[in-house]
């Protein structure tokens, strides 16, 4: 177990900036998810931590050791880390036990200790009795567990997981998510978990690092990420947030403020440093919106379409005063609407996105 410091790491591929001064601090024993759309640089980041590539600027520290910097590069085989690959990368010419034992053999661990540790690792992932099978004879979930056992048997200081659930079907994913969580609790290993699936990241991680276009946007707990996105990209990416223009009229000392949203006065949450501002932006959630009777405080919108989603509708609307501003919300069944019908929307809550979020 060790903490991991990623300090202003930059990686170039030709002129393309795959990682742009990314800094993340992962605490000892923490499970950090790195979340972002494909091509955001999260896999590149994992390859830097593992040491498969040499970085162009910055440094990476595992425990107290600088493992990557422009001056120094410790090769992957000396970093004492474990990786669970997306493809699992189980060696097809070895049995389950041989796969798991490989790292111990390389490290010079002798029998009988080796056999004991392999057996213990297989017990940990509940694969006793599978030791002599070949990977080809296992199911997807079982392969996943072999990969996990293989990576943990050498007790690495840090475990990297590269979209480990991406190749599993939906039901198995839910079960494995659970298993990962229990597993992390039991071993207490520091883990970096790469994923593009925010539900998975929210369910598993202690904290989430959101990346886009090679840059780190925000590192926060799942709840903070959802409630207080640091900028418009995060707001839009996480939980389908809607970014809307508001005027911040007055700021209260308790972390809330009064805003004006197309004439509709709304109390919203904001950063302590928030000042009154005529042109601010806020993040709204679908659950913050509801359809109300006319003559209550609200904003006027028109329905574009309603999509039936089983028990409720997803309503897609646009603000009448600004037709390119789209708002969506859920409305319970029965809901009668005609296309282009005018409705009144009331906003119950919102988060004012801090101006100049990045320095």
């Amino acid at each position, binding site marked *: 177990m060790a903490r991991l410091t990623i300090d202003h790491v930059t990686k170039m591929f030709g002129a393309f900036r795959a990682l742009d001064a990314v800094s993340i601090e992962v605490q000892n024993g923490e499970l950090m998810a790195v979340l972002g759309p494909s091509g955001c640089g999260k896999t590149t980041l994992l390859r830097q931590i593992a040491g498969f590539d040499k970085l162009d600027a910055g440094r990476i520290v595992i425990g107290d050791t600088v493992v990557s910097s422009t001056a120094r590069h410790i*090769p992957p*085989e*000396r970093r004492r880390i*474990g*990786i669970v690959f997306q493809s699992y990368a189980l*060696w097809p010419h070895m049995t389950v036990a041989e796969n798991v034992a490989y790292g111990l053999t390389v490290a010079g661990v002798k029998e009988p200790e080796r056999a004991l540790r392999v057996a213990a690792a297989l017990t940990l992932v509940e694969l006793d009795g599978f030791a002599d099978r070949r990977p080809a004879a296992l199911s997807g979930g079982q392969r996943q567990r072999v990969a996990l056992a293989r990576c943990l048997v050498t007790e690495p200081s840090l475990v990297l997981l590269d979209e480990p659930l991406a190749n599993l079907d939906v039901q198995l994913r839910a079960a494995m998510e659970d298993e990962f969580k229990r597993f992390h609790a039991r071993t207490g290993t520091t883990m970096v978990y790469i994923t593009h699936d925010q539900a998975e990241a929210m369910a598993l991680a202690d904290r989430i690092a959101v990346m886009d276009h090679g840059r780190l946007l925000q590192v926060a707990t799942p709840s903070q990420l959802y409630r207080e996105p640091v900028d418009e990209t995060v707001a839009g990416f996480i939980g389908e947030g809607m970014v809307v223009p508001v005027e911040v009229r007055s700021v209260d000392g308790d972390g809330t403020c009064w805003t004006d949203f197309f004439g509709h006065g709304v109390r919203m949450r904001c950063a302590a440093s928030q000042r009154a501002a005529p042109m601010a932006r806020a993040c709204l959630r679908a659950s913050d919106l509801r359809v109300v009777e006319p003559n209550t405080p609200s904003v006027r919108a028109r329905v574009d379409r309603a999509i039936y989603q089983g028990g409720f509708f997803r309503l897609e609307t646009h603000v009448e005063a600004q037709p390119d501003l789209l708002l969506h919300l859920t409305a319970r069944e029965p809901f009668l609407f005609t296309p282009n019908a005018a409705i009144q929307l009331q906003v119950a809550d919102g988060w004012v996105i801090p101006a100049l979020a990045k320095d």
Partner: protein
Amino acid sequence: MTDAAGWRERVEDTALLWALVAVVAVLSVLPLARLLLEGVAPNGQFSTAALARVLASPTTWTATQHSLVTALGGTVVAVVIGSVVAVIVALTDVRARNAFVFCFVLPLMLAPQVVALAWLQLFGPSSTVLKMLGIAPAMGSRNPLYSAEGIMALLGIQYAPLVFLTLRAGLRTLPQELVEAALAAGASPFRILRTIVLPLMTPPLVAGIALCFVSCLGNFGIPAFLGIPGNYLVLPTLIYQRLAGLGPSVLSEVAVLSVLIGVIAVAGIFVQDLMLRRRDFRITTTSHAMQPFSLHRWRAPVEIALWTLTVVVLVLPLIALVLTSLVPVIGVPLTGKTATLANYGFVLFDHAATKRAFVNSFGMSAAAAVAIVLIAVPLAYFLVWRRLRLLRILNLAAEMPYALPGVVLAIAAILVFLKPLPLLGISLYGTIWIILFCYIARFLVLGLRPVISGYYQLDRTLEEAAQVAGARLLHRLRTIILPLIAPAAMAGALLVFLTAFNELTVSALLWSSGTETLGVVVFSFQQGGDSTYASALAVLTVAVTIALMLATLLTSGRLAVGVLPWRG
């Protein structure tokens, strides 16, 4: 982890890479550079005397002209046969495709001297087959194959599979919807072939033509068997005669001749490059391979034509070869009474040189195959997974000794190894080691290509998983990569073995008493007039070759398409 962490890994990595660079440089760059040097500075002193002497000699230009004529003629024959067969096999619904491909590609895997020998037994006044049929020409009449036309025909038959293989590889990547779009536009299959398929197939066709031309140019066995008796000399046979007759004293002159043939080969490759650069042939879409065209009522006639071709170019000559190997003396008609296995007994048990040749050929082919696998597996690792610029040059260098005619490498090797090696003080010239060196240099690329394609099929995370488990490069190569790449390496080793086993060009120039190869012995028997012994020995080598090829068909399930040329 200290500050020196990773030091051993880096040293191991770098040392292995530079060791490979050194090996490839010694195998390809060193001999070719030495050869070029000899052309302008014989024995280390700048002199154009040898150059002028060779270029002023009419023999040089006659042989050059013969080389060009036979190589071009052979290429035309090969292109006509190879491309027609490729189009039929790749685009239509003929049956028994795999069996046909195996038979059609077989001449390519057989030794040229064996092909030549077999065809010689089919024609001519002493042909056992013609005698059995009672249609042999009168004694004393000339075998029609002892001619430029005979050489062209046999070169064409031997190398038609080369054109076939490159064109079929191209046809396999032809996107289905390009053809379907033309069909939807109302074009007939023939029109599609003419206006869509063949224009798009220009690059593989041109590549096949260039490959075929260079192979014809460098072929030694066929012009040696068909040309030398009638004193129709091409450059490789001229070089052989000079060197065999006069020994290493004419080395400077034959070096110039080798450079000349090398220049013609490079010119052929250059023309190919030029032809392809004028237009853009890139295919912009990707999709599944196309459905074969149905031949309908023409299917049976086309199949009959294909198998007739097989009978004519493969079966009949091989039958002639077998029949000749069974007669006691050339000229004696083969009957139930005259048939004998004495020729086999002689070559297998009585003739000392043949017994040595079996040991030499098996041993050197196996040694070359093993050495090449040991070089190719780490070399391809760096080529495929480490993409450095240095490596692209290295890849090109590894291709050179195979792309150039075999005599070029053989003469270059003599130049390098004639003088005693520094430090050791012994000369490799006249030993089996110089032949083995040439085998490894020349056939390296044959073993390398399947291994490279094997790496492309391999998921690199399998190696990376071993890396994070703490395994260093050599350990990973041994425990992870070698087992996974083994099928491809086996295929490569087999290609090397078969090619070296049937080889004559290099060993004809490098052998000495005690280091004979099977090719050399067959050649010597035939030159000495012992066609029956030559045929018996040739039949044995054909049997070994076919047996090994068939054996691989049973075990090649995991290989990529196209790795083993004879697989359908």
